[in-house]
Structure formats: structure tokens, C-alpha cells
């Protein structure tokens, strides 16, 4: 066995489950533990939640705080960032979902760090912390803007839950946000801007667009046991500082305190249903064996690939197309977000590896409708680390040999702008089950994706705008990265009726009243901003709705 692998296997969190025997890791202390309530497999708990990320982690916390018995399972390990996270791009791929998947279509999606997570806390453990609200009109994009589908949620309602999510995550953001309806002040102040972020500002000012410090889920001052951000720049590879306000450091500790049980390294392979057509629990693999956990309700929160994969794999005679799939929409309308970029070089030293990568943002084109395509996009400053950066050079420009090494020499002078753009829902973009099996013996997901004409127009517009912005800021040697995507959504969309959606506004399945979906899969459209805050706001709302339904006796 190689030394490189040995280092990997040494990782205690990956070797065996940590959350056992009445205790779970204390994420704020090396080797620390906190007490954890446990339930036997045959005890039908109120809620079993599959996944502990932005959706599942948030929901587990709130449901437990509202008095329900909760078990949240995650296929990934339970890390303690202080002892488990190396400052290393390669090593930290252990945070990604690297189980086998097949990608195809005209524009196959690159899976991994930018759209998955396999750890307690899900992808929030390595997300870029960008915490933005949707533009209100996006919740009615069909009726107000003419594309996509309307959400069964009212933006006023969402605005309240956004505020609660921002408070809970101590978002560090500007004193006033330049776009959209008024929002309360962010709990923490914006971070200092690095040089890369200032380039965005200079470009935007020259173009006459507004810009601002990006609201980020990493604290700019101490908060509880989180020290302030030290600007180490490895945010997307796990925050070893614990300044990041992830599900792992915010929702999970609260959930444990409120009595939720977390099961790490527990891969759910199948949801069980009974003769009445209700779910009864989940089959999961942990410590090498398969187990069955009974539950009165099951919430699937595995994100836009794993959620439909589990629903599709849980077929029965009664549900031959998979669970919650009478509409046939489970796995369909997969959306990613366009993540193209323009990069260039400056005479001055920029050293973009310092600080969170996306410290400044312009949402101009999310709020400006005079354009010849549907949807919006924002762009943010960039700070790729060396491997990410060389991947851009080889991928976007096909460089190798001396030209590659020469180009890499300019690393400390490089700047860039990267978009997060809205792609439109399309039923042909989808998740299906292939014939191949993964290490658990479960069918592997096949992810099919092709950009539509509108997507391409939006991307071209954004590339031109970003290029102009960098030119205005005096950046030279510009080139485009034209094929990147990030984030996922849409494979179990919420809607107004059972025929055209998978879940209702409460994230409750139309077909099976004790089956719920709570993650980015429920998005009918994906908007032009990073989705994590919206997922968390929806989870907060769902918890409140479940409590209301329970008090009215409307749960199963």
C-alpha cells in the first residue's frame, strides 16, 4: 500500500463510525466528544433524515429542537476539522462524493468538489460560503419573468426564513445590500477585501455596475467557539479554522444538543414501504453490514443526484417507477449552474490564494431584465489554488509542456471573474440508474446533461460582460474558461399539484404522505446565485410546517 494511501487510511473518521456509544465528535475540540442520544433500530423514530448537509442538517436540528425524535444518517465521515483537515487540495478530496457515477450528454457535468459532499455536514463542509438570497421574482419565474416554473412558495415568507438562516449562520455581509428588497442587517460585518476582490470592484465601477462585499458564512469576528477567519484560502477544501459556519459547525452541534442522533458512515440504500403505501424506514449499510431503521417519516436530503437515485432505487410492486414518482419527474429537470470564467494577468502582485475566494460580487445581471435571454447571473472574484488553477490552464487552454509551466509562473499575478448563472429546467437533463453497481452493490447514477440554447446565450453574455469588466480594470492576457459548472438542483421539484411536481410547498411527497424531500432537488428553477442559503431557508420553513401539521394531527 502506498504512503499516500496510508495517510488516507490513517484518517480515523473514514475508518470507522465515530458517532456511536452515546457520543458524537465535538467539532470544536481535537479528540473531543459531546453526548448523543441514541435509538435502537426497531424504534420507529419520528423522522429519519437521509443526509446531513444544508437541507438535512438544518432540518435535523430544527425538528429535534421542536421536540421530534430524529435520526440523521450520512454516508460520509464525521470530521473534526481541527484535527482532520490538512491544508491540501488533494488530501481534502476526501470531503467530496467520489463514489462512482457516469456522466454523459452533450455537456457532461464534472462531478466532485463543486457539486457534492460526502461528510456529516454535506457539501457545506467545503462550500465557498457564498450566502445569497434569491431575487423575489424567481419564486414566480414563470408568471413574472416568462420562463421555468413557479415555486409554490411566497417570497415574503422566504424573506423571513432567509433572515433566520442568516442569523443562525452569523453571515458576514455588507451593512446594506445593493440589490433587491430591503433585508435586515447581516449579523456580522463584511470581510476585508483581498486584491482579487478589489479588481472586481474596479471593473464594476468602470462599467457603472454596483458591487459589494459578498455575504459569506465565515465569521469576521469571534462567534462562540468559532475564531474569526484567518484568510488561509483553503475554504473549498474544508475550513481547518472552524470560522466557516457550515452545517457541521452550526446545525449538527445544535441538533445533537437537542437530542438528535447522527449516524456517520451510514449509507442508505433503500427506503422501505408497507402495504398501505407508506414508508416504514430505511435500509442502510454501516460498519460492513446492512441494517433497517424504523421510522414514522423519512426525509430524503441527499442532494440532486443521490436523492433521485435513492427514490428510483426503492421500487416496489406498488411503486414500480420508484417512490414519489407518479408524475415521472423524479430525476428529471436536473439543473446545474453555469460557472464560466474570464481570467487574466496584472503587473501588480495579487496573490489570490489569500482569503475566501469570492470576497466581492456583482449581481447586476440578476436584477437587470433588459437582455435577450431568460434567467440571470452574478459574478464573483476568484482565488483558485494551484491544482485548480492548473486544471483551468489544461482544461480551458489545453496547455502542457513548457508553455504550461511558463504560464503557471504568473500564478501570483493572476485574477479572474467567475459567474454563477441560471440554467433552465429541461426534462431531458436527468438522473437515471445505470446497470453498473457501486461498492455498496447499489445501482450507479447516470447523469445526463446538455446545455440549451438559452443557457448558451446567457453564458456568452456573461463571458463578454466579465471580459469587459476585467479590461476596464486594466487586466491583460485575458482568456476564457468556457465549460465549467457548479451546484445542482431540480430532480424532485416542488410544485402546485401531483401531476407536475414531486413534492408540495412543505417538501412533502404528493404520493406518500410520510415521505419528504429536503434539499436542492426541490428547486423548480435554480436562479443566478449559489443555492445553499435558499436550501437552508426552505429547511427552516419545512421544520415549522411539520410542527404545524403535527399539532393539527396531519402527520401520518
Amino acid at each position, binding site marked *: 500500500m502506498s504512503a499516500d494511501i496510508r495517510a488516507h487510511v490513517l484518517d480515523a473518521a473514514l475508518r470507522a463510525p465515530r458517532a456511536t456509544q452515546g457520543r458524537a465528535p465535538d467539532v470544536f475540540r481535537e479528540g473531543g466528544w459531546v453526548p448523543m442520544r441514541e435509538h435502537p433500530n426497531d424504534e420507529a423514530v419520528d423522522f429519519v433524515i437521509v443526509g446531513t448537509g444544508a437541507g438535512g442538517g438544518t432540518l435535523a436540528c430544527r425538528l429535534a429542537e421542536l421536540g421530534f425524535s430524529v435520526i440523521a444518517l450520512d454516508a460520509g465521515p464525521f470530521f473534526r476539522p481541527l484535527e482532520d483537515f490538512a491544508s491540501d487540495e488533494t488530501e481534502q478530496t476526501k470531503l467530496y462524493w467520489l463514489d462512482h457515477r457516469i456522466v454523459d450528454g452533450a455537456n457532461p457535468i464534472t462531478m466532485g468538489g463543486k457539486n457534492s459532499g460526502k461528510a456529516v455536514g454535506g457539501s457545506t463542509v467545503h462550500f465557498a460560503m457564498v450566502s445569497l438570497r434569491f431575487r423575489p421574482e424567481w419564486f414566480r419565474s414563470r408568471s413574472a419573468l416568462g420562463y421555468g416554473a413557479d415555486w409554490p412558495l411566497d417570497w415574503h415568507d422566504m424573506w423571513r426564513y432567509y433572515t433566520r438562516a442568516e442569523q443562525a449562520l452569523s453571515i458576514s455581509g455588507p451593512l446594506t445590500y445593493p440589490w433587491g428588497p430591503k433585508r435586515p442587517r447581516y449579523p456580522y*460585518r*463584511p470581510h476585508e477585501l483581498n486584491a482579487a476582490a478589489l479588481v472586481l470592484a474596479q471593473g464594476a465601477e468602470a462599467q457603472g455596475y454596483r458591487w459589494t462585499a459578498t455575504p459569506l458564512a465565515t465569521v469576521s469576528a469571534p462567534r462562540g467557539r468559532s475564531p474569526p477567519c484567518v484568510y488561509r484560502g483553503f475554504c473549498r477544501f474544508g475550513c481547518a479554522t472552524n470560522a466557516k459556519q457550515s452545517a457541521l459547525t452550526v446545525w449538527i452541534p445544535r441538533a445533537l444538543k437537542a437530542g438528535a442522533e447522527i449516524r456517520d458512515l451510514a449509507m442508505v440504500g433503500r427506503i422501505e414501504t408497507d402495504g398501505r403505501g407508506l414508508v416504514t424506514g430505511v435500509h442502510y449499510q454501516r460498519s460492513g453490514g446492512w441494517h433497517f431503521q424504523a421510522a414514522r417519516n423519512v426525509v430524503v436530503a441527499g442532494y440532486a443526484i443521490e436523492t433521485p437515485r435513492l427514490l428510483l432505487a426503492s421500487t416496489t410492486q406498488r411503486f414500480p417507477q420508484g417512490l414519489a414518482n407518479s408524475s415521472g419527474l423524479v430525476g428529471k429537470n436536473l439543473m446545474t449552474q453555469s460557472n464560466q470564467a474570464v481570467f487574466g494577468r496584472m503587473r501588480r502582485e495579487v496573490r489570490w490564494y489569500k482569503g475566501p475566494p469570492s470576497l466581492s460580487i456583482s449581481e447586476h445581471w440578476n436584477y437587470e431584465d433588459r437582455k435577450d435571454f431568460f434567467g440571470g447571473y452574478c459574478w464573483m472574484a476568484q482565488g483558485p489554488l494551484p491544482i485548480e488553477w492548473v486544471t483551468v490552464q489544461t482544461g480551458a487552454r489545453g496547455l502542457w509542456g513548457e508553455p504550461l509551466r511558463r504560464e503557471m509562473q504568473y500564478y501570483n499575478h493572476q485574477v479572474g471573474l467567475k459567474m454563477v448563472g441560471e440554467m433552465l429546467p429541461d426534462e431531458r437533463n436527468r438522473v437515471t440508474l445505470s446497470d453498473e453497481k457501486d461498492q455498496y452493490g447499489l445501482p450507479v447514477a447516470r447523469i445526463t446533461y446538455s446545455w440549451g440554447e438559452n443557457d448558451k446565450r446567457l453564458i456568452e453574455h456573461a463571458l463578454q460582460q466579465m471580459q469587459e469588466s476585467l479590461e476596464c480594470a486594466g487586466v491583460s492576457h485575458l482568456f476564457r474558461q468556457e465549460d465549467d459548472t457548479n451546484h445542482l438542483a431540480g430532480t424532485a421539484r416542488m410544485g402546485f399539484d401531483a401531476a407536475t411536481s414531486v413534492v408540495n410547498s412543505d417538501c412533502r411527497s404528493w404520493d406518500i404522505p410520510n415521505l419528504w424531500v429536503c434539499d436542492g432537488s426541490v428547486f423548480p428553477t435554480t436562479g443566478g446565485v449559489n443555492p445553499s442559503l435558499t436550501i437552508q431557508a426552505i429547511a427552516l420553513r419545512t421544520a415549522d410546517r411539520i410542527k404545524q401539521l403535527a399539532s393539527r394531527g396531519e402527520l401520518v
Partner: protein
Amino acid sequence: MSKNLSWEALAGLAVLGAVGVAALAAPRRRAARAAPTGAQTVVVARRLNRAAGTLAACVLTDSAVEHYRGSFHNKSMYAPLASATLNLASSLHGTADPRAAAHYGRNTISAIAVVTGLIGTAFHLYNIGKRTGGFSWQNLFYAAPIGAPAALGLSGVLGAAAERVRNTPPGAAPRILGAPAGRMLAAISSIGLFGSMGEAALLHLRGAYHNPFMWAPVGLPPIAATLLAATVVAPTPRLRAVTKASLNLTALLGFLGMGFHSYGVSRGMGGWSNWGQNLLNGPPIPAPPAFTALALAGLTALELQAAHHER
């Protein structure tokens, strides 16, 4: 550039500053009481020297740390260090000097501090203004602080005031720029306290007032400063008594602030062992005693008022 200033030198400055603060701020009641009545103005002047020196020590250590953080990229960033060091030395000299006559060297050094403070303020304003975003919250939070050079200027003003008071002919009431010294000093100290409060308010806003004690320097000093300003208009003994109490509390607060800021530094990642980062990015430990210095000046003003304009 940082190359020229080693950590050892920086640590040395910090120690020097701390010693200065300690030496200047330590109560010298006994000495004051023992002084002959004819030398009352000298005693007061020496107290003012002490206040000026405390402020200079704050400025010295704070600007050393902050300008080191700024890599001394502009040579003029050494100026406040030099000026504050001179002012600290001159204040120590004045504190120890029993003579009842102004000192040419101390006068000059005070003038230099005032000028340096003014230029520094202009520099900092220019610096904020030219940054992308101009006078935005972002730049007010993270660009050069406006109030810091003003503190150097104030320490010069206090030093100069000490010389004016010291120069008072026997039997006469001390005056500064033609005004009664007690009232004048009260006004100066009051303005200084308001300024420091403004700086603390801004930077504590940047810290999101995450600790409730961060409200203290925003709550107490303005009360003291307002009362002090009131004594300029109506210097009654009763008002002075209340003012004195609030100034004593403010002086204490400055010292406690150093403790709180040290705690803040320890909360940074890696705590004190990562001091190379946390001393620079954490709350500035030398900043709070500026309140102590200005409170000391205010207390001296009250004494002058009591001694020369009794009602």
C-alpha cells in the same frame, strides 16, 4: 519595509510603550500632596505630561503594529513612530521635571507631534478616498483609521498645554491661548474622548459588537465627555464631582480594555502562539488606554478649574 523592522524591534517598542504607560499613569498622589503650594501649576503640568505621554505610548505601539501590518510601504509611515517616541520621551522628561518654566525642546516636540498628527490625518483621509469605493463602510472598516493620527496630534496638544500651564507666573491663573486653562483643557479632553469613542464605535461595529462589553467604550466615555464639556460652560463643584467620577471610570475602562483586547487576541485561531497573525488581525491591545490618557487630562482640567475658577 518589514525587512528593516524585525520582530525583536517591534517587541521592544511594545515593551517601551507598556513601560511608558505604566510609568505615566501610575498615581503620584503623594508627590502632588508634598509639593509646595506655590508649585501647584507645576504639579498640574506634570500630570498633563503624564497624560500626553500615555497617549503617545498608545500611539507609538498602535502605529508600530498597524504600520508594520502595512509593511511600511510608504517611508512616511515611520513618522508617527518617531514623533510618538519623541513625545513619549519628552513627556517622561516633563513628568520628572520640577521646574516652573516651559522647556524649549519639549515645546518643539509637542509642536512636531501636532503637525505630524495633522498630516497623518490628511494622509489617512486621502488614503481612504482614493480606494475603490471611497468613503464606504468597507473602507472605513479596513483602510487607514482616521482617528489614529489625531491621537498623536492630541498628545502633542496636551504636551503643549502642559508647557503653557507650567509657564504660569506665580500667583496668576494658568491660561491657554488666552482662555482659562481648566476650561480649555476640559474642552480639548472632551473632544478627544468623543473622537476616541467614535473610533471605538466604528471598529466595534466592524466586530459586530459580538461581545456585550464592546458597548462599554461607546457608552461610558461620551457621558464623561459630555459632562466634561458641560464644565466648560458651567464649572460648578457639584458637576465637577460627577464628572470626576465618570472620568475615573473612563480611565479604568481604558486599562480594562487592554485586558479585553488581549482576550480577543487569544480567541484568534492558534491563540497567542499564533501571535504573528492574531496581534495584527485581532483587536489592537494598545488602543484602549487612549481613553485612560484623555481621562487623565480631563481630571487635570477639573483640578485646574477647582483651583482657579471656584464658584
